[in-house]
């Protein structure tokens, strides 16, 4: 299932420095890379910008060329009804399967659905996909993010 549902997420190391976020997004804009989903994790001194983009290879190469430290990781996405309990049902399935969630972020997908992105430890990736699918939750294929 991994090959079918793994989504390439880019993590970019950023110092907490004025203008740095502008510089990342500028590089992507100039390369005509579209950001499909994002989350920003921060500590006191630095942050990690996580992106799902329409063209991860291109994004990675332009960011690296501009001197950013970039790491590519597999995440998966699910589509749930945009209503109370939507997020809960996925978290419950993962928790009951003893799978730790590293982090997650979400955005509103369409009229009445939401897209949730999950990062789990790599060794649980396959299992997480199975658990979620068996629980009746719809997995989102990468084409949803990459296609234009």
């Amino acid at each position: 299932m991994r090959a079918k549902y793994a989504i390439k997420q880019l993590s970019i190391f950023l110092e907490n420095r004025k203008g740095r976020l502008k510089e990342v997004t500028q590089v992507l804009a100039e390369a005509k890379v579209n950001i499909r989903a994002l989350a920003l994790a921060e500590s006191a001194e630095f942050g990690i910008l996580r992106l799902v983009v329409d063209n991860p290879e291109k994004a990675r190469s332009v960011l690296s060329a501009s001197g950013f430290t970039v790491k590519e990781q597999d995440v998966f996405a699910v589509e749930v009804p945009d209503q109370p309990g939507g997020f809960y049902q996925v978290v419950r399935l993962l928790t009951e399967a003893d799978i730790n969630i590293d982090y997650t972020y979400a955005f509103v997908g369409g009229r009445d659905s939401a897209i949730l992105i999950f990062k789990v430890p790599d060794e649980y990736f396959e299992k997480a996909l199975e658990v979620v699918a068996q629980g009746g939750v719809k997995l989102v294929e990468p084409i949803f993010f990459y296609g234009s």
Partner: protein
Amino acid sequence: MDWRKKDYLPREEIEALQLRRLRDTVERVYHLVPFYRKKFDELGLKPAHIKSLSDLKELPFTVKQDLRDHYPFGLFAVPLSQIVRIHSSSGTTGKPTVVGYTENDMRVWTEVMCRTFKMAEVGPGDVVHNAYGYGLFTGGLGFHYGAEAVGAAVVPSSVGFTKRQLMLLKDFGATILCCTPSYALHLAEVAQEEGFDPQKDFLLRAGFFGAEPASEGLRKAVAEAWGLKYFEAYGLSEIIGPGVAASCPEGELHIFEDHFLPEIIDPETGQPLPEGEEGELVFTTLTKQGLPLIRYRTKDIASLYKAPCKCGRTIIRMGRVVGRSDDMLIVSGVNVFPSQVEHVLTQVEGLTPNYVIVVDKRGVLDVLEVWVEVDERVFTGDIGALENLKRKLEEELANALFLRARVKLVEPKTLERSMGKAKRVVDRRELKDIS
């Protein structure tokens, strides 16, 4: 001989004493320390060749690395059974510099510290607040023994806990302060913040400051803040610890040259330089038994003056240390070599990072920061992993340096961008020095 008279001997007498002791030291190291035996033999030198003080230049140098190479006791000239004290400094690549003292060495050390305290007529009735670090560092115990020996009451407060130190300074009526100059100023500032008037609410009349370089501005600021007379204490653990030289009431730094024979050399060529010229300060110990050192290169840049001082002392004077001939940093009185930092970084998970050491001042106190570039070999995309890396590096650095360093994780190229060319050390303290 009464130690009080030793600072005032006629030059001929000093030099005769030095020659006698030098020949004795050379004889001892030749027979007792294989390292020196080998060096002498390589040079075709016998102890009997040393007939005058000017023959000193024939003798081989000793450097810090020699002490490390013979870690821990390889350069000791006596069996361990005669050693009564061992001190040690942090090491560059894991191996510290170890120094050992015999009972007689302890007497010499105490004597030179008495002569140091004598500069301010410290004696019974004085309360000496000693805020040098106690422990492996020679500062704390060196001052401690000297202060006891002159009959003062010693408060061994050691370092840290500034507010408690102020309470002790005040409540015990300390008259003499011993610490690094920057800490003395920090204490005064905290005293003011706590609502005290350092000049009126405390009884400090003099202080002995050392272990780090101090500009004229810093000296003046310390003296004025506390309303005390500033005395400088110079020393290094390899030679004995504090007590190698001390400043007199005229502000002149006198070397206790009947125990430590100084020279100034050209750090490039190793050739001795004439009196008054600036160069690297080199010491030969004249009375040490545990760890006698021949022509030990301090890497401190200074100069020497033989003319008698206005204070009446005839022992040689050294100019202020104006710099170093190597890359050693002194941070809060602790010696730090960039190679120590690099060693720690490369030990941690095979990290071979780009880094810059930034020494700065927060208020009057030194802060050490190590900026490490996070590149794709280290970056997992996980924030917890980065925080762990930072914590681990800070822990390892504290262990290796005996000093707290703050690690800052930065993006690649930041260092070049913010520091200009590839520089390993950025010392921002000079720019901010009080003047």
